[in-house]
Each structure stands twice: as C-alpha cells, then as structure tokens.
C-alpha cells in the first residue's frame, strides 16, 4: 500500500517545510491581494472583476491573453492569483500558463465551459489544480480564489498535508506531493485524500497505485478522459 511504504514512490527527495512554502507569496497585510482576470468575453471579465472586488480583492481585468502574458512577464506588477479563461482567440489559458515560470507564477484558476480530458490532463501536468466550470456562480469564484490564496497559510497549519501537497503539485513536484499525502495520518484524513493521491500517482506514472487510490475514492481510473467531471469532483471535494 502506498501509504504504508511512502519512500517507495519518491522520485524526488522530500524537501523541507520552508521549501514547501517557496513560491507561495501571501499578499502583504498592508495591501489588498491582487487578482488578474483574463477573459476575452467582456461581460464575463467584468462580472468576475466586480465579484472579486466586492469580496475585497484588487481585481484587474485583461481582455487579451497575449497582453496578459506580457504584463505578467514584465515583472512590474505582482498578482496573488490568476483567473484564466481556457478558450481565448489568440492564446488559450493553458498556453498562457505555460509561458510563465512555474516556480514564480501565482496560483492559477482555470475557467472553462467545455474542457475535455486532454485539457484537464494538460492542466494538471502544468500544476493547475483549480478548475472553475462555466457558467460560474459568484460565490464559487470567490471561494475558489480565496482558497487558492489562503492555501499557503493552510500549508503552515499543523495538519495541512493536503494543502502542502497541492502546493507541491502547483510546482509540479509530484513526488513531494505524494510524500505529503503519504505522511498524512490515516486517522486525520479528509475526504479528497484518496482522489488527490490517485491523481498524483497517475501524474507521477504510478498507474497501478493510482488505480487503487481511485478505487478507494470510488472513482474510475479513466479520469483523464472524463476530465471535466473529474475536475468538478475534485473541486467539490476540495471545497
């Protein structure tokens, strides 16, 4: 069982707690956290910006994904969270995320109305674990962005193995993520543990153990085909 022998699946050596928090730069208390919403649909973009602003975020909208990439790559502006639409005319959300350095980029929420399995798999492989299905409700967007932003704080909590594992996942450090999950005491395990373990095992190439984990999570191992439902299920279990 993977949990009984965690070292068995380690591809990379586990890092220290300080290293786990690397790349997670919580917004400074002095300023409001900033979020960049990139969507070519003006009404959606405006809705997201207004929704987040009403929740106290410093939300900024960007219509062009290419302009957003330049804006993010310039280093002049700092954003705590990115909300990217998947389907955009010049550069889709995944390509935009791919253009950013995974070690320094802000956490990303990918919003899409019709992502398929391949898209989901590509997003997960890029460390994008937060998916917002369209059409979205204001409270869903708020909750997702907020959770993503506070994950770093959760990661510092005494029993936040899941948060730390997800932060590792955002950096595509699969073995570290698996190590965090396996270090999670069984008695304190929360609902999404098996699902995330299965995903991490599969992304790390441990298909057989992914299947076992998926079976325990009552999910079938063909998640990469049913990416939308899988993502929705993951989002549900992660709250």
């Amino acid at each position, binding site marked *: 069982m993977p949990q009984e022998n965690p070292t068995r699946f380690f591809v990379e050596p586990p890092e220290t707690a300080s290293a786990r928090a690397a790349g997670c730069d919580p917004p400074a208390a002095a300023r409001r956290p900033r979020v960049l919403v990139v969507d070519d649909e003006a009404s959606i973009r405006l*809705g997201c910006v207004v929704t987040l602003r009403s929740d106290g975020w410093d939300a900024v909208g960007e219509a062009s994904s290419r302009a957003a990439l330049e804006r993010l790559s310039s280093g002049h502006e700092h954003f705590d969270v990115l909300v990217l639409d998947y389907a955009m005319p010049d550069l889709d959300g995944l390509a935009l995320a791919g253009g950013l350095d995974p070690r320094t980029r802000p956490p990303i929420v990918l919003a899409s*109305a019709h992502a398929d399995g391949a898209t989901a798999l590509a997003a997960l492989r890029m460390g994008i674990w937060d998916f917002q299905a369209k*059409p979205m409700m*204001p409270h869903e967007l708020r909750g997702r962005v907020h959770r993503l932003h506070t994950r770093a704080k959760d990661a510092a909590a005494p029993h936040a193995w899941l948060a730390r594992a997800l932060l590792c996942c955002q950096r595509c450090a699969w073995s570290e993520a698996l190590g965090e999950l396996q270090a999670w005491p069984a008695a304190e395990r929360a609902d999404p543990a098996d699902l995330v373990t299965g995903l991490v095992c599969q992304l790390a190439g441990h298909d057989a153990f992914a299947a076992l984990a998926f079976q325990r999570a009552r999910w079938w191992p063909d998640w990469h*085909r049913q990416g939308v439902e899988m993502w929705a299920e993951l989002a549900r279990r992660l709250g």
Partner: protein
Amino acid sequence: MKRWSFVSGLRVILLLILVLSGYCVWTARGLTNDLERIIAENYDTIRAVRDMRSAMTHINARYLTSRSVEKVASSPGTFEVESAVILERVATIRRSSSGSAEGAQVERIQTLVDEYLANYRQLFLLTPEDAERFGILIDALARGTEDMGARTQEIVDKNERAIFARRDAAVSRGRRFGWTALGIAAFSLLIYIYTSVRLTQGVFQPLRRLRDSIQQVRARQFDTLAPIEGGEELTQIATSFNHMAGELRAYLAESDQRVVEANRLNRAILEALPYPIYIADEAFKVRLKNPRAAALSTALKISDELPAAVRKCIDEAAARGCELIGDDLHRAVELPLPDAPAGPTPTYLPQVFRMAADAGATPGWAVLLMDVTKLRQFDQAKTKAISTLGHEVKTPVTSIRMTLHLLLEEKIGPLTPDQRELVEAGRDDCERLLVVLQALLELAQFEGGRVHMNLNPTAPADLLTQAEAMHGGAFRGSGTPFAAEPPPPTLPLVQADAIHVVRVLGNFLSNAAKYRTPGTPVTLRAEERADGFVRLSVRNLTKRPLAEAEQARVFDPFYRRQGEGAEGTGLGLTICREIAVAHGGRVGVWSKGAQVEFYFDLRIVSSSASHAPGKSHPLLRGAA
C-alpha cells in the same frame, strides 16, 4: 380393339373347351354303350351257350354212356333238371341275339335242342325190348350233340368276334378322341399364346410408352406427348395426360412470363432506385448490383467485392442476428472515392436485409445504400448550428446570470423590493435557459460523434452498485423507497462505459422518483436477455400508465406527456438514447398497467474478450 381381341380370344378358348367337353362326353357315352352291349348281348350269349353245353355234357355223360335201357330209364331226374337249364339258356340266347342271321342260327339251335330233348324223351319211353331203337336214339343223340356243339360254337365265335370288333372300335374311338383332344388343346394353347401376345402388345406397350412420356415430362420436356393407343382406358389416360401436360406447359409459359415480367419489374425498380443496391451471397461475393452500385464500385475501384464498410455492416447484422434497417444516422458509413474531386465525402446509410434460404433461393444479403451525404451535411450543419448558437447564447446568458447573482448579493449596492423581485425572476429564467443550453450542447456533442465511449468489460453488478451509491442516497434522503435487487451471480460481463451507464440509470431513477405513485418503491435490477444483452432497468408504479404511442416517443427530444408541466429540459432521455447508441446497446420503455420499466440493454462481452468479474481494469489486476 385390343380388349375386343382379348375377349374374342377368350371366347374361342371357351368354345374349344366346351367342344372338347362335349366330345369327351359323347365319346364316353359311346364307349359305355359298347361295353353295355358287349356285356348285355355277346357276353350273356356266350355264357348261355357255355351253360347249355355244360348241361348237355352233363346229360350226355349221364345217359349216353349207359349201355342199357334200364339204366337210362331208371334215372330221368338228371335229364329233367338239365333240360330245363338248356331251355332257359336257349331262351336267353334268343333274347340276346339280334339281326336275322343270328335269328336263323338261334332257330336252328332251337330246332336241334328240341330234337335233342325229344330224342331223350323217347329214350326214356323205351323198354328193354327196344334195344335197337335205343341204339338208334343213342346215335341220333350223339349226332345231335355234335351238331349242337358246332352250332353253338358258331354263335360263340360270332359273339367273340363281335366283342373283338367292339373292342377295336372302342380303342379306335379312344385314340381318335385322344388326338382330337390333343388338337383342341394345342389349338387352345395357340389361341392363348396369340391372345397373350396381342394383349401384351396392346396393353403393356402403350403403358411403357406412357411411362416414357411421363418420365420425359418429369424431366421438364413438356413438349412430349403420350401416344394415344392401347385400350379405351389407356387412351383416356394418355389423353388426360396430354391434356395435363398441355396445361402444365401453358402454366409454365405463363409462369415464365410472370417471372420475366417480375424480373423486368425488379430490374426496372433496381435501376430506377437512386441508391446503390448490392446482392451478395454468404461468402460476401456480389451476385447482383444495380447500375448505381456498379458505378459506385467502379468509382471505388472494386469489382465483385463489397465495399469494406458495407461488409462491416453485414458482419454487424450477422453478429446481431437481425436485419439492419432504419434511419439512424449513427450507422452511416463514409465511402471516400479515390479519384473524387474535393467535396463532401459520399456517405451512405446501409440497409442490410437477410435473404433466407427458403423457397430454393440462395441465402445471402441485400444491402441498399441510402445516400445520406446531404442529410449528414444538414445534420452536421444543424448540430454545428446548435453548438455554435448554444455557445454564442451561453456566454452572454452566463454573464447575465452572474450579473443578476451579483445584484442579488447586494454587495455592490442595495435593491428595492421590486428590483429584487424582477432580478430574481430574471435569474430563474437564466438558470432554466442555461440548463437547456447545456443539454442541447451535450446532445449536439453526442450527435456530432464527439463523445467517445470508453467501453470496458464490466460486471453488471458493479454498475448497479455504482448507480445505487451515486443515486440511492438521494432517494433515501428524500424518503422514496428504493431497492436494488441483487443481480443473478451468473450475469455475464457487458461492454460499458461505467460513468455514462450510471448516468443513464440515474436519469431513469430520477424520472421514476418524479412520476411514481406516492408510497410505492422504485426498483433497480439487472437480468440477462436471450439476444446477447444484459438489461439494466428501473421499475416503478406510475400514477399515469404510458400509452404505446407515448412509449415510442418518450425518448424524442423535447417530448412531454400531455398534462405534464415543463419540468426538466426534455432532453434527458434523448441523451440517454444517444449514450445507448454509442454503447451499441438500446434503451426503451414498456408499461403494463401501472407498472413502468425503463431499461438499458448492454451488449454481453464475447467470451474471448471477457475478464474475471469484479476486475474491470487491467491496472487493478496488476496491483492485486
């Protein structure tokens, strides 16, 4: 004629037998008469003569040997007795004699007897003194005895001759009778042989010819006529047979004409039909094709073979054991032409018909390829239009919905009660519109073939367990009695995409909960069908039974039963049908009284592709 000859022959033979019998009787009677005459005349005469001679010898021995008158006269008794015998025998001879010659002889004997007896009577009257007279009389008696001997011998000889003559005549008659009978028998035999030969020739020869004619007709040489010959009955049979053969010939000619007409009509239909039609045998070799099919084959650069895609359809029909007909565009096949100019790929919807081997027909398959290129284009255009329109509509609706939700949160400003009511009404419409749009887009995805099914050998029990796990909780939470019947342990594995199958069952369960009679349970069950499917079904008792017309339409898009509200999108069951089609399975509904069952039939995995139950994924097997 033959019969008359036969009867005539029999008559002659009968006549000859009668003649022979009469002759036989006549001859026997003649022989009997001769014998009677021999016995009654000749033999009696001879015996009388013998008795008379004996008596005379007796008398002579008694008296002629006496030397004296005294001795003779002393014993006249012997004379008296024997003389009576002699007279009686003479009378007998007289009675037996016939004809004047014999009569004269009898008279002479009578005279000699009278003289003889008179001499003896005189002898007895003599006295011892008449010794001379005694001697004379003794001499006379001796002469008389001698004459009597001569005369009676003549009579005896005559009668013996008569006996011999009659014997010779009888022998002669017997021989003549024998020869005559032999001749008659020989003649009868000849007549019999002649009659038999004529009868054989007259009866069996025509029968043989009739038999040969029948055999020729049997060999389909209908122009053969049976010869009209033989007896009356044979003639009638031959005439009837010829009449029958003529009618058969006419019928065949008529049938041939009909066949030709039907063939012409069929060919005209085949040629007139705007679709390619192939008729193939069991070995999938094309036996017949209409001009359209010939043109298609030429364009595809195949000769006597079926197009590969069509062959697959026939294989599918053979595997299912049924014909493939209908207008389901999912079955359409594309037949790209090698040298065709750029444009839409020709698309055909095969209609596969099984041709049974009965009535002497060759078993095989008939395939009509309905050209659905345009229809497919229209359908794709429709699907694309729905998809595009859906997306185009969905985005602003999504935006409006988010805006309305933001307004209702009042985080960007308060609303008056009237404003809130208006915004809430708009939000509800947006929600409903989004649900419909989502379903439409999904249906368009299915219809466009963009949804891929990941079919794996799956245990039906696993599917029921998942459905119960995903939907049973909601049922029980709402207070609806729900029961998943344990499936039979012998259920085979099915080809299934578990997620979609569970979704279909969820849809059925949702409908059952919605339309069930309050207080009655909803049942989820699985059973094996005889046609290679396993049926997963949801049963419940409904408030309103489903009529047959409704059963046929309940899976149509946007179909709603009369009298029911507009709850739901009206596309849920349609999407279920699309999922079933993508599985190669089928969905349906039946209703009996208040009981309604929605079912999803999944194809059983062939034995070669099956896995152990409960191990539905290779990864699980590897990890176990």
